[in-house]
């Protein structure tokens, strides 16, 4: 299957290094301290931030005198994908994503400013059309900014696929579901653009080092 046409276009008419349309709104949720809704193409994620607040009874074991606890809960609405799925809250996949989001934001938030407090981030995928993880990171960053929580830098994530055409590797940015399901090597990278640091990096399949360099 050709992901990139001879003219250099993708399924949805984008160029290889072109993003989908990005739309976002801050402060959508009155109840939370900060919230954001972000849509990249047809992927839509709602993020809500609570805190810094007093740790809940279940978090007391993790309380530290030096820094605050960052808790992330990822969930996916039953109606998010084409097939209606009722997933239990906290299944293996969601747990893994929650954990990597937690690691990401522990590195992003200036946690030493709020000792003995907790910051909770909730992300909910409302529509899934590829690049869910990356959109979750971006939405959660926007919600953190809305909440006024001190962060090192605007933390951004992008998903990226490798398409090989005539022995040349092209990186397809911001994958849509149709491209993700084509079983191509996919990279998810989270970084801080101003400081130039990489926070989180994930490759879910085998990828030749030569192509890997081309991606970066």
């Amino acid at each position, binding site marked *: 299957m050709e992901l990139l046409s001879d003219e250099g276009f993708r399924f949805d008419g984008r160029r290889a290094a072109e993003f989908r349309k990005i739309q976002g709104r801050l402060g959508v949720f009155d109840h939370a301290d900060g919230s954001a809704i972000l849509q990249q193409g047809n992927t839509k994620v709602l993020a809500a931030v609570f805190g810094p607040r007093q*740790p809940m009874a279940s978090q*007391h074991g993790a309380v530290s*005198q030096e820094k605050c606890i960052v808790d992330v809960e990822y969930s996916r609405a039953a109606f998010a994908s084409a097939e209606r799925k009722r997933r239990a809250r906290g299944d293996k996949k969601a747990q893994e994503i929650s954990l990597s989001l937690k690691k990401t934001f522990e590195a992003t938030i*200036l946690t030493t400013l709020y000792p003995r407090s907790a910051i909770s981030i909730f992300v909910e995928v409302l529509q899934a059309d590829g690049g869910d993880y990356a959109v979750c990171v971006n939405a959660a960053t926007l919600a953190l*900014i809305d909440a006024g929580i*001190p962060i*090192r830098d605007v933390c951004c994530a992008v998903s990226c696929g490798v398409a090989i055409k005539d022995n040349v590797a092209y990186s397809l940015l911001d994958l849509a579901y149709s491209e993700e399901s084509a079983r191509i090597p996919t990279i998810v990278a989270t970084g801080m*653009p101003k*400081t130039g640091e990489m926070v989180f990096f994930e490759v879910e399949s085998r990828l030749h080092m030569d192509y890997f360099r081309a991606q970066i």
Partner: protein
Amino acid sequence: MSTSDVNCVPGERLGSTDECEAGRGTYVRKSFIYASRIGKVKNTVDENKKIVIEVIRKDEPPLPQVGSIVTAKIVQVTQRQCRATIYAVDGIATSSPFKGLIRREDVRRTERDRVELSKCFRPNDIVFAKVMSLGDSQSYLLSTGGDELGVVLAKSRAGVRLEPISWNEMRCPLTGVKEQRKTARIRAEFVEMQPAAKA
């Protein structure tokens, strides 16, 4: 002293530590000052003639810090300690209530070992207290030692707001009954403001 109209986003470089100092809303990395939140850049000159760079945000709910004066409501009084819920820090409402704890020996500065907590606080009293330490993981340790700390608002058995008459007594204006409290000495105009802050 100036608040410029320059907006900044987290991660933006605002200056170097050679010339400036990092204030609130900023952090230092490799001797440069970066913004850590969204807001307006404010430059002030401190007493050392150094420029302090801050990022100002309008609505910033406070957190209790060591040394800050908090407004708290007494929840439970036992013989040894008294639990309170913190609603405001330095007169500004917090985003969510925090738990506080006043130990028997922290109620007043003199005769600390003779304190009887039931003669100092009652549930539902509003007190001013100072944060002594961050305490254990459950609650902040508070102290009401000092003239200006203690009960500021309390209701009598008749349901009327009590008036302070001395440092350890309050009187009900309706029935004239005296009740014992560790009262705070506060300016009258400030007491008038309190009901609004409580609500």
